[in-house]
């Protein structure tokens, strides 16, 4: 990326925030329409005592669910990559279950697992698991058949082909799945928290909406966005390190 493009991007961001601030003052917009960025920052700072524990809870739920889901998704994909007949049977059903919007499962998770962290972690694991599973399976099965033949001509068996060829070939796809999943994990945590919890940014947002406390809504979204960006950035950085040949 050239310096000019980076500069223009920064300029765009500066214009957006500056213009936003200016509009609010110039038209003296009421808070419920649009609070100024300075006001959002000030609220975030002054409400930090309440936002910090909520943010910690949200991050904890998102990360635990993410780790569990990623591990299960990759493991299941590896099993199905070896068991071809099982795959033909299971895959369409998995896709069907996955096509129901996440939000629809959230009330169920709350009824089954209560309003604590468990229901959020399970929801996140479920969504991340699906995303990683579908990506990993795609990567594991979309391998050059000529490369499989070559390895077989060296005397390699199925497990060896999985380990030496399929898994490394699938790494870019798995990494993509893991990267997309960071945002999904955050979305699902927030959405499930909105429905019912004792603590968390989603809950903060829901409560603030009911109390018509606009600045609090914006502040919670800001904090959630920062967590999400950091999460995404870290996973992308690891991805670039691991999938160096792309």
């Amino acid at each position, binding site marked *: 990326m050239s310096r000019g493009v980076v500069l223009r991007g920064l300029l765009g961001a500066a214009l957006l925030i500056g213009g936003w601030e200016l509009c609010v003052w110039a038209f003296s917009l009421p808070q419920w329409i649009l609070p100024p960025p300075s006001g959002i920052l000030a609220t975030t700072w002054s409400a930090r005592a309440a936002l910090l524990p909520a943010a910690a809870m949200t991050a904890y739920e998102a990360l635990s669910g993410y780790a569990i889901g990623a591990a299960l998704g990759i493991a299941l994909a590896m099993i199905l990559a070896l068991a071809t007949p099982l795959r033909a049977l299971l895959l369409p059903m998995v896709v069907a279950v996955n096509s129901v919007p996440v939000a629809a499962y959230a009330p169920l998770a709350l009824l089954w697992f209560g309003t604590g962290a468990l229901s959020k972690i399970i929801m996140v694991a479920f969504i991340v698991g699906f995303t990683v599973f579908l990506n990993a399976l795609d990567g594991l099965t979309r391998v050059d058949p*000529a490369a499989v033949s*070559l390895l*077989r*001509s060296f005397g390699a068996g199925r497990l060896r082909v999985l380990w*030496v060829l399929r898994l490394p070939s699938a790494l870019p796809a798995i990494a993509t799945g893991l990267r997309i999943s960071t945002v999904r994990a955050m979305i699902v945590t927030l959405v499930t928290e909105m429905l019912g919890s004792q603590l968390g940014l989603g809950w903060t947002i829901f409560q603030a909406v009911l109390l018509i406390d606009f600045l609090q809504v914006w502040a919670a979204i800001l904090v959630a966005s920062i967590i999400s960006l950091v999460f995404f950035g870290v996973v992308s950085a690891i991805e670039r390190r691991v999938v*160096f040949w*792309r």
Partner: protein
Amino acid sequence: MKLSISGVGKNFGAVRALDRVDLDIAPGEFVTLIGPSGCGKSTLFNMLAGLLEPDAGGSILLDGKAGALLGRTAFMPQRDLLLPWRNVLDNALLPCEIEGLPRASSRARAEKMAVDFGLRGFEKHYPQQLSGGMRQRVALMRTFMFERDLMLLDEPFGALDALTRSMMQRWLLDIWERYRRTILFITHDIDEAIFLADRVVVMSTRPGRIKLDRPIELPRPRDAHLLTAPEFTAIKRELLDAVEEESLKSFSA
């Protein structure tokens, strides 16, 4: 290692790809195989590599013995198929790893061989950092590291430009004289077929059959001037006639 193919045929559904192929190759011989596209050359290769079973009635014997062929011949497919996450040395070591050979000794062998293959100083490079000719040399070295007496090379230089290709041909002959393996080499290029081989085998259009088996008695070592020598041209004309006839058949069919 002596290879004897007799009466080998292959049907894919209703399509007869290969029709009773008989071919004997002596130990240490360099045989090239040419023929129109889709004549079943690759089918034959896949059977020799043990990736495909011949239809009943045919037999493939290595040193007079039948049995599973998988892992007994060193097979090099058309594309280099180097693994992008392994460096040059680790790519070349892949077959040894799969065989379960001790790592240290294979590594020492590969490091020595890298010199012969013009890869010295590039051992730690990744495939995507190499030129086409170099990648092909790594793939070839991988095939040599899989120490089998019979090597099957499927158009290894097909994707290279003409200059690189002729350099690689001379270099391959050099390597071959040094390591003395039996080589069966598929190509589309008649010049290449004659230049490299002790014998050129021409296959017919589908269903593939051996149409012509022409010994090449040109002296070795061979150099680039051979390509314009009158005896070379005479062989080329003979082979061209045979190949042309087959190409015309497949064109009008």
